[in-house]
Structures are given as structure tokens and as C-alpha cells.
């Protein structure tokens, strides 16, 4: 067991163009400090978050993935953030099956006004991942060849469809 205190996790964050990316901007404008472990990717909507991105992030060496979107009811695209919510729930289950702690995937709602909240959430997640230690994923090698990813994605999408029918 390595000493987690000196471990600097790498976290990939997916942000929505309308709320959480702007929250990150606001955190900057307000000079709110948070640890430099998170690297953000801007999407138009959290609904764009493809489960493959998350698996690819883990395969590529990320220790955690943060997915952020507008609060329920405030989605720029009506309600696509709810789809992100469902996908995240399924994704947590899927990664667990692959031996990844589901805590490594975190969904956070942050409006464009919640720079401080987002910064707190990032800080909190960095600490949580630090405590978990580096991602130790035996399948990483296999996945690097990209062979499993489409299969996984299909599984997640199909079950999402089922959820929607059930809902």
C-alpha cells in the first residue's frame, strides 16, 4: 500500500458549456482556490457525456472522473442533464463490475452562479480520490487497445433504454 498523502490524483472533469463550465470560470474570476488535479473538458451539455469518455479516461490513466451539469430543472436543453444522471448511475454500476470504485465517478450539479460550490466539490473529490489511492485497474492494458470500449458502451446504452422504458 503506497502512502496516499503524496499521491496527486489526475481527475478529468466533463463540464456543461452553460452552467458548470461557467461556474469554473466564476471560481476563477472570484479567485476561489482549489487543487490543480482536475482538468476540464467542455461539452455542450452533460447529456453529451458518453460513457466511453469516462472509460477511456480511466484507461488513459485518470484516477477519477467528475461529471458536472446544470441542476435538474435548469438544463439548457430542457432535461438532458437527467439523462446524464441516469447514465452516471448506470456507469457507476458498470465501473464497479470492472473493479473500479464507483466513487471515482462523481456527478455534481453546478449552476453558472455556483463557482464556490464547484470549487468545494472539486476539492472534496480530490481528497476522496487521494484517499482511495491511484486507480489500479487490471483491464487497463486490454482497454488501451480499445477493444472493450464499444462493447461496454453498448451495454450501458441498452440498459439506459430499458430504464427509460421503465420510467
Amino acid at each position, binding site marked *: 500500500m503506497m502512502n496516499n498523502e503524496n499521491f496527486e490524483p*489526475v481527475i*478529468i472533469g466533463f463540464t456543461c458549456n452553460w452552467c458548470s*463550465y*461557467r461556474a*469554473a*470560470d466564476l*471560481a*476563477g*474570476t472570484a*479567485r*476561489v*482556490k*482549489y*487543487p*490543480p488535479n482536475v*482538468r*476540464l*473538458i*467542455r*461539452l*455542450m*451539455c452533460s*447529456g*453529451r*457525456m*458518453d*460513457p*466511453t*469518455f469516462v472509460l*477511456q*479516461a480511466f484507461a*488513459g*490513466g*485518470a484516477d477519477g472522473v467528475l461529471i458536472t451539469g446544470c441542476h435538474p*430543472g*435548469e*438544463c*439548457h*436543453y*430542457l*432535461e*438532458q442533464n437527467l*439523462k446524464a444522471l441516469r*447514465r452516471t448511475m448506470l456507469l457507476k454500476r458498470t465501473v464497479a463490475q470492472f473493479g473500479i470504485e464507483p466513487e471515482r465517478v462523481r456527478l455534481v450539479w453546478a449552476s453558472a452562479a455556483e463557482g464556490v460550490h464547484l*470549487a468545494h466539490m472539486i476539492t472534496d473529490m480530490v481528497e476522496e480520490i487521494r484517499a482511495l489511492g491511484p486507480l489500479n485497474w487490471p483491464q487497463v492494458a486490454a482497454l488501451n487497445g480499445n477493444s472493450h470500449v*464499444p462493447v461496454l*458502451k*453498448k451495454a450501458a*446504452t*441498452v440498459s*439506459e*433504454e430499458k430504464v*427509460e422504458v421503465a420510467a
Partner: protein
Amino acid sequence: MMPQERIGVYICHCGSNIAGTVDVEELSSWAGEALRHRGVVVARDYKFMCSSLGQDLIAKDIKEDKLTRVVVAACSPHLHEATFRKACADAGLNPYLCELVSIREQVSWVHTDKVAATAKAKAVISGGVERVIHHEPLEPMSVPINPATLVVGGGIAGIQAAMEIADSGFHVYLVEREPSIGGHMAQFDKTFPTLDCAACILTPKMVSIGSHPHVTLLTYSEVEQVDGYVGNFSVRVRKKASYVNHDVCTGCSICEEKCPKKVVDSVFEAGLGYRKAIYRPFPQAVPKYPVIDAENCIYFDTGKCKACEIHCEAGAIDFEQEDQIIELNVGNIILATGYDLFDARRETQYGYGRLANVFTSLEFERLTNAAGPTNGEIVLRDGETKPKAVGIIHCVGSRDRKFNNYCSVICCMQSLKFAHLVKERTGAEVYNFYIDMRTAYKEYDEFYQRVLSEGVHFIRGRVAEVTDVSNTPEEEERLVIQTEDTRMGKQRRIPVDMVILSAALEPRHDSDEIAHMFGISCSVNGWFIEKHPKLDPVATMTEGIFIAGCAQGPKDIPSTVTQGAAAAARVLGRIQQKELALEPIRAEVTEALCSGCRICNNLCPYHAITFDEAKEVSVINAALCQGCGTCVAACPSNAISGTQFSNEQVMAQLEGLLMLNMAEPVLA
């Protein structure tokens, strides 16, 4: 392998904003070296990239170094993406081949350790470089704009919007659910703060809309279906059967007079007065034709009566009339659907519905209206007794987490108006009970001062209850308002004869369905959401759909009219452009890959995806698509790609961020 693209990387110091925390020189020399194998041919840092000198630097490199891609590491793309795209376009590079990555808001301003911040900035630039390689030159799309406009809702907001557009010479379809336009304003007697008569200022506008050559008035009608997209909506409207042939009706109103069926009018008279089964809501109704309310009509119930038909000399009554379906083609839509009044019976402690002399604000409007059920006499529910003391309660159903968390904006001023009218017309003692007095607008606080000077009592305290449980002889047979007078921290019980509840404005009960039909969204409280709360208050996230008036949130008449005019101005701007350029952030289906599973079809909030039964593939209407990318993420066959946010772009950025693109493996 030789890189295919020639990439320029530009790092901004932003004065010391970035350079103070990030080693910018190190960044530029690193980018030039470590990313050379990815195609970076030039990497520079400069004090202010967004300055004209900075932009010139990029332009010069595009021309001289034949750059095919540009990455700028500076502030947030929300600030200067447009600036750098334009700089690239001016230098002859397709603007969408430029990527702006944020090392200010997301790096220098939020981190303190220079080494760590510089390392993160490298990852961010690396991600940008990888992403930009997969960018494609894009052209903005354009759609033609049908010059006709649909306005939904014939209150003052809709009337104003329709008027502005029609006066500019473009056609407007004005759809109204009730038999007459006029909305809530037509119910009022006086309007604050100037106390001009609502009918005097509203009816001329109603008349000119009713006879406007560029307005098609569709009253007693509701929108049933909306298809299409900005510039080219097709709308289905149901015009309910009025059982009166408008072509021959003269509006003489003899039918109303002769109709034997009296019904409580819960809409226009707010339940305080009656109408007939065949009726116009009020004498100045536009259009002037009556409608038969089939639910209450004796003929429709029993097959007998026909009093209206017998007395109609014009022969306008037509019991066989059926609902009419009207198809409209319009380029833009303005929703001005207004508000519902809070059902004050829900706040049981104020006794509305149980205690006869508790009135709602709308009931009181009708009570004071010279054309109302009492001809403007302020009397108790018995119809004759004048009150000696009147209590007016603010914030009923507003600023209350149990009902509506928001301030209804108009109630303070409306209550002051009521206080003035009661005082003026009855001389009664008037008590206003408020939490905070909100009179923030032109001439509003002056009106408060005026009402104060008229001797109205103001008690700061939200009323605990209105009760008929009396404790003293003075309270017998009266209504007692119990409150804490927070000015002195004492409980007070104030006996009055009449209580007026300034009830909250609420979203229309069916606002969710309306929003869904038009492809827009409602806030948590149920109001339509504007594109930007301050800078774009009448547009919505859906191109071509605009909102005005109380449908967007509670507001007074001046603000409502302003929004109606503003929405019209936005629509007119669109019409004048004749066609509209759209951001090319869209999803498209690669037909060869589509398996026809239809998973994407139901995911689209804008109904942009349809299924082509012949080809058995899904098709995306580019004008309807707003580019959220949900379908892209959901497609199990990877058949949908999102321009500017394609899988390749995101995956590449991911690899770059994780430094998987380094020639020498770097442990992130």
C-alpha cells in the same frame, strides 16, 4: 509519422494575471519542443494576446507559417473565443479551426503553486492541441425566415407584441383562449401608480388590434401542435365552436339579454359576478361576438330552449357549428400566456372561501370596477353594506415556501392602490399588513408616500390569521386580523369588516404542457425560462420562440408592455434579416452506420430526430438541432457525430489532457 497539420500555439500572459502564477515562457518553449511531433510549428507567448498586436501576431503566422490550426491559451472561451476566431477568419483561416483553452480562470486564478499550475497548463494546452487537430472547417448554416408571426395570448403583452409587428407591416396571428382579448388588465379598474382607468387605455389598443389589416385574431382558440423550426414553424390551432356565425352576427347582444341561464363567471368576473350561457366576457370585448358555453347551455343539456336563436334577427346562432382546425405557417412565435391567480383557499388561515367578507385581489378589482357586478361600489358580500374597516394582506401565497417562494412583484403596489380606492370611496379605516414594502420603480414610492398621507394604517407584520372567533364585544360579528405588529413586537387583533388578500401570481396551470409543446423549459417555479435572465430576457433557448409578460415571471403592466415590445423587436429583427445564421454546432447521422435502433429518437428535447421508414435510418433536422449532443452520446453504433464536439475531438482532448500524446511517455 509526419504530422498533417501545422499548428500555432499562443500563450497569453494577461499581464500578470496568468504570468504571475504560470511560467509562460516555459510553456511556450515547452509547447514548441514537446508538441512538435504533433504538428506545433510555432509557439509564442505574449503580454496580451487579445490586443490588436497579439491578434496581428497570430494573423502574421497564419499567413507566413501557413498555419492550419491555432490554439490560444488564455482566458475562458466565453470571453474571447469570438475574438480569436475572428482574427483567424480575417487572416484567411476558417474560424472553427481555432481553439481557445483557459489557463486563466481554470489555472492561474484558482491555483497558487507555480510549478503545479504550470504543469496543469501544459496538460490543458496539450489537450487543446490534440483537439484542434480534429477540428473541421465549418460554415454557419442559414435558414429562411417566414415573415408571419404567431403570438399566443391576447393580454396586454400579446396585444403590444402583435401591434408592434403588425404596425411594421408584417402579418400576425394572435391566438387567445378566451372569447375576448384583453387578459387580466381588462378586469382592472385603475392602474397604479397614476390611477388611470385600465379600460380607457386598454380598449383602444384592443379595438385597433381587432381591426388591424395585418392581424388575424383567433379568439376562443388554442394551439394544439407545433412542428418545424425557426423561420418555418407549422402550427395547428383549434378554434372552438362558438355556435355563433361571426359573418352575420352584429354583436347586438340581444341573445345575452334573452338567455335564461345565469352562470357564475369565474374567469372575467373572478367569481364575483354572473354571466349568461351565451356571453361576451364584457361589453367592450374584442371581437364583439358572443360564444355559447355549451356546458351550461340549456339547449345543449335538454335539447330545448333556443331563446338566443329565436331572438337573433341576424340568424347568427348555429347550434351545429363544430370546432375548426386551422393550420398556420409562421417564422417566429411569441408566447405571452400570462399568469393564474393563486387559489387563496389554500392558505386556510385567511379564511377565503369560508368567511364571506374575505376577498381576493381580483375579486376586489371587479368590486371597484364601474362595469363590475356592483357598478364599482365597494360593499361586503351581501351586496349592500359598506365596510367601516378594511384589512389588506400582502404576500398571500408569495414569499412562502409552502406555496410560492418568490415575490409576486405587483402586490405591494396593488395593495396600495386598493388602500387608496377604499379610502377614497368609502372613507373606511384601512390597514395594510406587509412583510416588506416593495415600491421600487418610477413613481412607485411616491405613490406609497401619497397613500401614507391619506391616513392609511401600515402594520409591518405578516398576518397570522383572519378569524371569526371573537374575544371581545367589539370583535363580535366581525373579522379579526391577528398579527404581530413587528414595529413594536406586540400581538394585535384588529377587527375589520372586509379583508382583501393580495394573492400571488402563479404560472398558468398548464404552463408545463405549453412549454413542452413549444420546446422551451420552465423554471423550478414554473415560469418560462428566458435565454439570459438579464441580457436576453425575451428570447428562449429555442430559436424562434420568444416570451413576454407574466409567462416569464410576475411583473407589472409597464414591464409587461416593455417585454411585449422587446419580443416584437427581436422578431422584427429576424424578419428583416430574411434568413438566420445558426451556430454550426449540430449533430448529424452517418446513414451507413445507423442501425435504425431509434434509441436517439426519443432522447431529443427538440424533436429534431425523426425516423426515415423507407431508409430505416434516423434523420436529424439541422435547423431544429441545438447541439446538446445527447444523441451522439447515446448512439450505440457511433453513427451520430456532433460537429465541434465529435467523439474524435473529445477523445483526442482527453488523450492530450492525460499527456498520452508525448513522444516520451510522461507519467501524468
